């Protein structure tokens, strides 16, 4: 029932048994259950569109399934999946087959019930994050959703540590300024 790939152990190459096929499937399902939600969130904040995020996550896991034997250290699974997703996201610009939606028109889905003031503030923050340049947005998402350290982010994005720190500083700084500006506009309009 499972893909029969030869396994290399040291210098030996052997045919996997049916038991290894099952454990490969279970290993994959464990990865999906553990990381699909975080990967979806990462994809959404990267591409600003729910349906593209869904496609990206599906495609990422299909590629992960094919390359599962290359994942040697389970502790690196999350960063490995994010690397696949980032490559997949880059490919969509090469293919140009996705229908892009103007982010201004995207309705923010929010199932959490908030009071009107909280909801407005959250929507403002949501929009402010989407307005960030992707160079600033990406390390911020990796840090907050992914829980990665700045050194790990530098490695994943192939940047030096100082650049990552600068981008994180500017991302948070821009968000704060944007929110303050919005709040001032609201209070100005109400007086």
């Amino acid at each position: 029932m499972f893909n029969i790939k030869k396994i290399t152990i040291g210098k030996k190459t052997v045919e996997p048994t049916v038991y290894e096929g099952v454990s490969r499937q279970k290993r994959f399902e464990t990865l999906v259950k553990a990381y699909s939600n975080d990967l979806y969130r990462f994809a959404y904040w990267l591409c600003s569109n729910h349906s593209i995020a869904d496609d990206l996550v599906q495609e990422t896991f299909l590629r992960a399934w094919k390359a599962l034997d290359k994942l040697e250290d389970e502790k690196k699974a999350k960063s490995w999946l994010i690397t696949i997703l980032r490559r997949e996201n880059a490919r969509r610009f090469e293919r140009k087959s996705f229908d892009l939606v103007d982010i201004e028109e995207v309705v923010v889905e929010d199932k959490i019930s908030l009071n009107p003031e909280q909801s407005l503030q959250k929507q403002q923050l949501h929009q402010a994050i989407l307005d960030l340049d992707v160079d600033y947005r990406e390390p911020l998402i990796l840090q907050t959703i992914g829980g990665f350290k700045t050194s790990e982010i530098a490695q994943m994005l192939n940047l030096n540590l100082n650049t990552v720190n600068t981008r994180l500083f500017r991302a948070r700084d821009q968000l704060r300024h944007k929110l303050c500006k919005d709040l001032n506009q609201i209070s100005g309009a109400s007086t």
Partner: protein
Amino acid sequence: MDDLEFRKSAVIDPGNQDSEFLEKTRQSRNNRRFIKEQLSFNQELLDTLALSTPENLTDRIILAQQLSQHKTRHKIKQLKKRQRQWRNWLGGSIAASIIMAFSINLIWPEPLNSALLAQKVINHFHEDTHALNVHMNVPKTSIDTMLASYGGKLNGPIGQVSYLGHCIIGEHTGIHMVLRTSRGIVTVLLLPAQPINGPSLLNDSQISGILYPSQKGSIAILSEQPEAIDQTRQQINQTLNWII
């Protein structure tokens, strides 16, 4: 670490656990207040970023992976078929008939003697008794996903499923389910890769059941309550379809 450096570090990573950074935080009330503000903003950010994800995302991913496997296998089969046709054309009718006979044997494995499989099923049941003690409320979507990987489909509910997993009987995999029916706990083993030549009773001192040929492979139903077996068999026959 000077004040400017401290404030910059606090903005970049307010959860920084570096000892120098923590020491600087402790040094003044202003520093502590600044860190508190940064952490509060960070939490706000996290709340916004952690948006809700689509329902059944994991099930859909697993289903897509299993369907892609089917497609790959189908492509390999097609390729092998074309290669066989080419060889047949070259090798003439005698070679063709040998290859065809061989390939037919590959695609439709010889039905097993049901008594042999029956013994393997009983052994598996006793090896896997932990499944009876699992109390998961398995959603139908999970059953659909796993069934789809074997080319199966459920047309309706099959009742409360408390365990669902892959199982290995002999050299083939199948689906192991435990159902909590009104008449008792029933174990169902779907063995789509194991066709048999006829039905066989499954009996030992602890368990009874039946193993019977299905549209694809065979199905085993076991229970300590014999009256639960027939009811489950009817339900499985009504709802389960093999589409591939």
